[in-house]
């Protein structure tokens, strides 16, 4: 700032200002209203980054409280209430004095903003802000993006070192120290280590979603190497089955499905390519920042080869697989709904924020003003995820598809053109055939008529009566063949995928008043969340802004990367322990829960970033801890002090997810086919669930892993429907876990359970042809639970099998022995030991 002249301000005047500034009843409140409406946002947006407590205090000046500017800066007083011309602050923002210009760097405020500040100073600078750095709790609305920066999830990552723990040999890693310190603080002790069988079963299910085979169990138990567990972990992390399990976790967030759902359940015939891209990317341990960037802007990234281009494009199918009201005739509404679905999905999935709340009004609880919502919405309204295509006899708005391969675009265009013109082609085919018949029968008059009215229907040679008849016939036959070929070649669907594109003319979006699509408020530039970063988003005018958004989401210095890392690390923890350090995994806002171990969460997030965003690294770090390898037994102290096991005094006991349960049944029965699948819906019609009788229903009768089962919205495979699969219409980080009667009915009666039980029985009988019941039972337990039965369990089964055989009521000519063992195998599948992971 330039030279400073002291201004004399009388005490009386100050008192007046002070009383004016109180947010009280009466005339004073009009001034405060003016401040709240015009001045606070202005200061927050333009000045706080350099002049607020907790940020910077440039020139010794604070502008985030009344006391701040009353005290003045290094150059003395900056505001003289009632006298704008004498106030340094006003002089600075007028930008006329070359030595005194604020905000700096040639970015003057708008004329309107200057006028507001002048008017505010003239009215005596009413200001209700009591304390610096405390803007959150004072008068700032919860949606204030600057004040909101104090919320725990939005603060920079802490760099806490693992805490000291009382003389303990227990910790195996820094993570353990964080856990143990909290346990000790609550006078709790960690549970004993899990026994090795339990641990092996746990790590197999957690990393690859399958049980270990008896041979794998034996090898592990017999191995003497101290690093045996670590070696199993590495082997599982490297197995292709890892991506099938951990990719599925991401697919829950991506609301992956093979059909649209909602009003018109059209088939997403090509969605599987995105599903398999996710599995492959997880297996390749693609760094998460790259993983995310490809999904948000893969179609905009540079590429070295066509296959690379296609992979990146397929990744961006993430934006296309959402559910949409396809038949709505309200285009304006639909456009905003589609963008909303994307804002909400990205916000929840990556940032753990409930952005959808800010669609109709400033967020009531989190620092997200409506203007930020529409800044993001503009990015997605500038993106095409639907297109008009031929479907079921008409041109309809459908999910956007694009061709794959070097000539993909041409082939796709030709295919669509064919369907668009198909009725015309069919008509033409009729005509050329009719012309041929006329020619053959020698009806020259009618043929000439036809050639006159429809020249495309008759070959020019054929239309010429002066030519030899055989040549005319040949010419017309060629035309028939040509027209028929046109129909035949185009009828096969070319390789294509769900791929978004930037709109022809990207544009900023106007705020919609009360969220109503046709009530326009002011336009806001496309951009990001101001609670995380200042300044304009620098989105080129002709770009949607998706690429910039993807970069911002993973930018750990100037973007949302630190929050994204917290959210992701917490999700990994949630999957491994059944509960996140932040229990509300999809809500890191003020209505979510605070972390149980905030320093640990930051430690994990930092580790994730430092590893180059390697999810496999993070998983490995966690599963190698002592914490992860604890047993799950209860103890009195734990139950009394921490009944929900928030502090992790024992390992959680969990129910298998439907995928793991089905895969385990098939695996144990010896039926599981580990071959990955492409489409599992190709046999379905364009309506995935037809109105009326639907003979072509989605199938589940193939023995491949459950991740490849069709995810038809509103018609999930029974095992998914019954056992709390994710709701594929919305992004979900935490599946519900329910106990409903249909689950019991499923295990007792479903044909798929019956079939797996019988296959297991056949396997047992084949593998141990001369064994007695007891050996058979031991083998059954080894296969299905990786452990021998207890004496009691063995006795239960022995008596059941004997009794069943004694009944001798063969059904369908089935062997009595096989029947008895099938029932026993099914009982084991239905048992809590099989369905629970200790």
């Amino acid at each position, binding site marked *: 700032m330039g030279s400073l002249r002291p201004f004399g301000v009388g005490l009386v005047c100050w008192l007046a200002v002070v009383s004016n500034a109180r947010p009280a009843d009466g005339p004073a409140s009009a001034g405060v209203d003016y401040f709240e409406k015009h001045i606070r946002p202005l200061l927050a947006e333009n000045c706080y980054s350099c002049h607020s407590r907790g940020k910077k205090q440039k020139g010794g000046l604070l502008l985030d409280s009344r006391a701040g500017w009353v005290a003045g800066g290094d150059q003395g007083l900056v505001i003289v209430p009632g006298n704008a011309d004498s106030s340094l602050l006003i002089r600075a923002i007028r930008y006329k004095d070359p030595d005194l210009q604020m905000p700096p760097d040639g970015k003057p405020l708008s004329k309107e903003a200057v006028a507001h500040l002048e008017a505010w100073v003239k009215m005596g600078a009413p200001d209700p802000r009591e304390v610096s750095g405390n803007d959150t709790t004072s008068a700032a609305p919860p949606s204030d993006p600057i004040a909101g920066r104090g919320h725990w999830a939005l603060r920079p990552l802490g760099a806490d070192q693992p805490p000291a723990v009382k003389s303990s040999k227990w910790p195996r890693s820094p993570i353990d120290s964080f856990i143990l310190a909290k346990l000790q603080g609550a006078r709790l002790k960690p549970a004993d280590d899990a026994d090795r069988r339990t641990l092996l079963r746990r790590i197999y299910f957690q990393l690859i979603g399958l049980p270990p085979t008896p041979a794998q169990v034996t090898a592990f138990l017999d191995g003497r190497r101290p690093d045996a567990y670590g070696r199993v972990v590495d082997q599982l992390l490297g197995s292709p089955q890892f991506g099938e399990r951990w990719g599925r976790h991401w697919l829950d967030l991506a609301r992956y499905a093979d059909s649209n*759902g909602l009003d018109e359940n059209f088939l997403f015939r090509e969605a599987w390519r995105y599903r398999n891209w996710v599995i492959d990317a997880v297996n390749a341990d693609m760094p998460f920042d790259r993983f995310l960037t490809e999904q948000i802007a893969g179609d905009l990234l540079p590429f070295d080869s066509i296959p690379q281009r296609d992979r990146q494009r397929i990744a961006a199918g993430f934006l296309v697989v959402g559910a949409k009201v396809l038949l709505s005739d309200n285009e304006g509404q639909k456009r905003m709904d589609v963008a909303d679905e994307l804002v909400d999905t990205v916000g929840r999935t990556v940032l753990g924020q409930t952005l959808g*709340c800010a669609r109709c*009004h400033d967020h009531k609880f989190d620092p997200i003003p409506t203007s930020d919502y529409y800044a993001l919405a503009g990015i997605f309204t500038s993106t095409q995820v639907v297109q008009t295509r031929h479907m079921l006899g008409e041109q309809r708005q459908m999910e956007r598809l694009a061709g794959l391969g070097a000539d993909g675009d041409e082939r796709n265009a030709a295919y669509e053109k064919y369907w668009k013109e198909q009725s015309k082609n069919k008509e033409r085919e009729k005509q050329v055939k009719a012309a041929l018949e006329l020619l053959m029968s020698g009806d020259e008059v009618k043929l000439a008529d036809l050639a006159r009215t429809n020249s495309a229907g008759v070959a020019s040679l054929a239309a010429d009566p002066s030519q030899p008849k055989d040549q005319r016939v040949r010419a017309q036959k060629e035309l028939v063949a040509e027209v028929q070929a046109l129909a035949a070649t185009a009828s096969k669907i070319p390789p294509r995928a769900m791929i978004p594109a930037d709109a022809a003319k990207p544009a900023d979006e106007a705020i919609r008043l009360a969220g109503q699509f046709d009530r326009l408020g002011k336009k806001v530039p496309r951009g990001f969340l101001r609670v995380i970063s200042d300044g304009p988003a620098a989105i080129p005018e002709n770009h949607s802004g998706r690429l910039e958004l993807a970069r911002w989401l993973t930018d750990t210095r100037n973007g949302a990367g630190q929050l994204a890392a917290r959210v992701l690390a917490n999700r990994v923890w949630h999957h491994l322990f059944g509960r996140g350090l932040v229990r*509300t995994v999809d809500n890191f806002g003020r209505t979510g829960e605070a972390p149980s171990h905030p320093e640990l969460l930051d430690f994990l997030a930092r580790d994730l970033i430092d590893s180059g965003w390697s999810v496999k690294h993070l998983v490995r770090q966690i599963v190698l801890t002592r914490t992860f390898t604890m047993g799950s037994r209860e103890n009195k102290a734990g*139950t009394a002090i921490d009944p929900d096991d928030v502090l992790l005094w024992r390992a959680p*006991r969990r129910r298998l997810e439907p995928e793991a349960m089905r895969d385990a049944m098939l695996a144990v029965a010896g039926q599981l086919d580990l071959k990955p699948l492409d489409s599992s819906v190709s046999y379905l019609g364009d309506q995935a*669930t037809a109105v009326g009788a639907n003979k072509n229903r989605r199938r589940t009768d193939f023995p491949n892993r459950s991740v490849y089962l069709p995810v038809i919205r509103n018609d999930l495979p029974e095992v998914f429907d019954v056992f709390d699969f994710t709701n594929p219409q919305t992004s979900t980080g935490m*599946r519900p876990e*329910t106990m409903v009667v249909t689950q019991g009915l499923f295990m007792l009666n479903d044909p798929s359970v019956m079939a797996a039980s019988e296959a297991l029985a056949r396997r047992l009988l084949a593998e141990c042809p001369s064994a007695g019941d007891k050996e058979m039972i031991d083998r059954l337990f080894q296969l299905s639970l990786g452990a021998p039965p*207890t004496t009691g369990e063995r006795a239960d089964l022995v008596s059941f099998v004997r009794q069943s055989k004694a009944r001798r009521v063969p059904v369908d000519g089935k062997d009595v022995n096989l029947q008895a063992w099938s029932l026993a195998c099914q009982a084991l599948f239905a048992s809590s030991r099989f369905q629970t992971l200790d």
Partner: protein
Amino acid sequence: MNCHHFTKPITRRDMLRASAGGFGGFALAALAGKDALGAISPAAGPIYAPVPPLRARAKRVIFLFMWGGPSHMDMFDPKPRLNTEGGKELLGETVGSKKDKLGTVLGSPFTFRQHGQSGIWMNDLLPHLSRQADRMCVVRSMHTEGNAHGEALLRLHTGQANLVRPSVGSWVSYGLGRENENLPAFITISPPRGHGGVQNYGNAFLPANHQGMAIGSAEIPIAKAVVSNLGNPQISPTSQRDQLGLIQSLNRRHLGSVGHDPRIEGLIANYELAFRMQSTMPAIMDLGGESRQTLDLYGIGSAPTDNFGRQCLLARKFAERGVRYIQVSTDYTWDHHKKVKEGTVEECAKVDKPIAALLDDLKQRGLLEDTLVLWGGEFGRTPMVENGDGRNHHPQAFTMWMAGGGVRGGLTYGSTDDFGYRPVENPVHMHDLHATLLHALGLDHTRLTYRYAGRDFRLTDVYGKVVHDILA
């Protein structure tokens, strides 16, 4: 969105305490006849709504859903001007539409008469229902959104179309709980598979025990319909009983070895319930125990009433056994883009007698007083002609009617303009209908909320007002 009400997150422990008297109470509560099944994960909120009920006029609802959209002006809302001006152009300005021309007016082919002491108007295709006129409250001023079936069905059943929301029956189940521990609180008989499909009886984010249990689907005759996995043709009942004994013994041994575990306790209770339901449900679905007189009353055994008659009788049996929300759906047969005359004749013939029988039967059994019967489709039909003799979809105005539990019989409420194009007096939006339905059941639609994804949601979003005038 209803974003204003936030409750403290509920832990699994809170939930168990609230629902089943604490740890270990899980199985006991279920066996004692209270419903302890439902959500057991920390993700979940309470199993049942923690709202104190208002005065309940009705204890349950039977919704008779006419899939496709019946033509209101051909059934309950006579419009003489359609006939005097048939064949003429309907101008937008006549009915307050922004469009210049709306199409050609199609007169109604039917004769209308007033019925009962109350003089409710009906067409001449409803000889049985017309005798119930004084029990009926006909709302002529319904309106909704969604020009296509899918959107309109979702709005009718869940209040919204662009987001997945719990269905009305699920909210009722959540709000009132079960009366019968062997049956779900929400059963849907022959639901449509398309136009939203399971979403129309889905629980969305409510605990899964509030999902409607489906019996068959619309295109399958109810006599052939089954509930999935409700029995096992491969195993004799004795064998299955033995097998259940083995499963439960294994489960109890597991439980014994780990101490307390609500999941295992819940699982044990769940198998018992599943096994019991295998015998209770088929017993209800078997109409063999009904008298010949009752079967005749519903028109069972004779065309064209057999199917809908069976559905209605089944609905009565479920109502009798304490199911809270029962929906009966027709097949997709009310969508008369062509031949609205023939179509309406045919459909009325299927449902007229069974509906009247249902009302009489409920009355006779003392159930009509606390059973609210609701009739209607997803929208109405246009006053303008389509395809020469049909009518198109019309969400702007249509008729639904109610009878029984808590509604004023013999009342015609609301009205439409001279063409049945839009409501002019006392319009009732779909959200208002939902609010009123809940109110009749003693549930305040503004307080029946569920916290999900950081917000409290309700059936009526931020809308809906109770139509007190139609409640007794």
